[in-house]
């Protein structure tokens, strides 16, 4: 058998109710796993904020602040990347409908909606949305190891 690099892939999950007071739990979970993965503090902070923003979007838009719905957070670290997958069963979100604003002219008009989406895209390397027929929406936030 060859001495191939062992795949350290594993899965870690957290389930929360769709209320904003759960955000602290999500941040602590992601913070711990991103640190374990070996990212520096600055990168960990970026991932944590991106996941917070994505969860907030789900609470606000997919579940319209109904507090007893479920959000699943799954961390999937492997040899090359750190992935956080968020799953909800609420109203589907069409990422194509949201254009990335020209942030400078946008804020100069005192507009505040959409800031979270812009932050997510700025903080991680890849964002993938998937809406499927079983009424489950997923968003994957990916940060590469470099």
């Amino acid at each position: 058998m060859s001495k191939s690099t062992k795949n350290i892939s594993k899965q870690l999950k957290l389930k929360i109710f769709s209320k904003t007071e759960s955000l602290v739990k999500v941040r602590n979970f992601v913070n711990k796993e991103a640190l374990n993965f070996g990212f520096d503090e600055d990168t960990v902070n970026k991932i944590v904020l991106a996941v917070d923003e994505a969860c907030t979007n789900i609470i606000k838009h997919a579940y319209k602040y109904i507090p007893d719905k479920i959000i699943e957070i799954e961390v999937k670290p492997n040899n090359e990347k750190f992935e956080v997958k968020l799953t909800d069963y609420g109203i589907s979100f069409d990422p194509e409908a949201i254009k990335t604003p020209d942030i400078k002219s946008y804020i100069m008009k005192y507009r505040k909606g959409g800031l979270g989406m812009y932050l997510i895209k700025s903080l991680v390397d890849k964002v993938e949305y998937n809406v499927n027929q079983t009424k489950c929406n997923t968003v994957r936030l990916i940060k590469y190891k470099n």
Partner: protein
Amino acid sequence: MRNFKINFREGPNAKIVDLKGYLDAHTAPELENALLKLVNSKQYNIVVNCKNLSYISSAGLGVFMAYIEEVRKNKGDIKLTNMSPKIFNVFDILGFPLLYEIYNTEMEALKKFVKH
């Protein structure tokens, strides 16, 4: 457990708002109420000291956005001070330094509110 706290202080020509802890979608309404209280009592010169602010998400930044127009219409301003690099970085990504005056110290911000 309370993980966000707001304290008010009187400064020369301005009200100082100290923020402590974690400002996210859960705690942002507290800041919203605090700024609303100031605006309703016609206190438009506001310095927000972020020295003890550990975390901010877009929900927190949105609160500043919600009041800046009204405050400036009334010849006041919201000036921000004492941000850690972590907090400043979030403001910076969203281009907020274009819209808000951000100072290293509270004193620098207060000096800008000198009466003409």
